[in-house]
């Protein structure tokens, strides 16, 4: 596996994953815009409802995803340096951070349901559940991808799995990136 030259420019993974990432980011951009548009129409309702959200869960989740992204990005570097064992360990760490996110998310949704809050409670909660829910589905898919990618990495110590690894990492970073906007938008913005 040859290392890129000092000024070589290379897109990680393959073009197709970036097509997907761009498409998904555009979809979420529509989510962001839609949320703000309807928020402007019912600002007081949105502010009141926002108080019922658990910002702490959201903040911990943000840190979990940021850290998991760091683990995954570092894993890619390890693999490029032919350090397959550590690449596998870092990918596993990233996976467990993501799993932590999922567990907290489920707990958070459960808390809401027990308090009688569902996606039909009001418009704010409709957007809250729909957008963080769809993001959650992305997290779950990402966990599956990380699991699969880690297996590929461990089976290809010769570095031939780099494209698969970079594809998976790119998807996971996108999941992190989307939450970075979603969290302040829904939980913090007043």
């Amino acid at each position, binding site marked *: 596996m040859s290392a*890129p030259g000092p000024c070589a420019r290379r897109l990680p993974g393959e073009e197709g994953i970036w097509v997907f990432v761009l498409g998904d980011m555009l979809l979420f951009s529509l989510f962001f815009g839609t949320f703000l548009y309807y928020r402007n129409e019912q600002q007081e309702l949105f502010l009141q409802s926002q108080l019922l959200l658990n910002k702490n869960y959201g903040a911990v989740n*943000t840190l979990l995803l940021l850290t998991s992204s760091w683990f995954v990005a570092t894993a890619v570097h390890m693999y490029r340096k032919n350090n397959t064992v550590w690449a596998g360990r870092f990918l596993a760490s990233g996976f467990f951070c993501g799993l932590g996110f999922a567990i907290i998310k489920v707990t958070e949704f459960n808390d809401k349901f027990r308090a009688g809050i569902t996606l039909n409670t009001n418009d704010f909660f409709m957007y809250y559940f729909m957008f963080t829910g769809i993001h959650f589905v992305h997290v779950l898919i990402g966990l599956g991808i990380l699991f699969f990618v880690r297996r590929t990495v461990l089976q290809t110590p010769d570095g031939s799995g780099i494209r698969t690894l970079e594809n998976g990492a790119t998807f996971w970073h996108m999941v*992190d990136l989307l939450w970075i906007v979603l969290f302040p938008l829904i939980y913090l*913005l007043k």
Partner: protein
Amino acid sequence: MLGDLSKAITLVWIVLFAGSAVSWFLVPEGTQVTSLVPGIAILSIAFFKVRLILLYFMELRFSPQPWRGIFEVWVIVAWGAVTYLYVA
């Protein structure tokens, strides 16, 4: 070039963490929106973090055009649209 990246991403993580902390403390108490400034700051920090992730974790900084350009444009347009809608 990519070798420096592995040290850079740790620094980036620290910056991302710091950005999250700053946003956290910028949130006003209660529901009264006295000023739009904290909100704009929070949104701007968010998109700044997004750009860092794109450039360093996702390695767009070392990627060819048009890909880097496409995402840089998205960051600017999305940040602009979101800020505009928030302020409007």
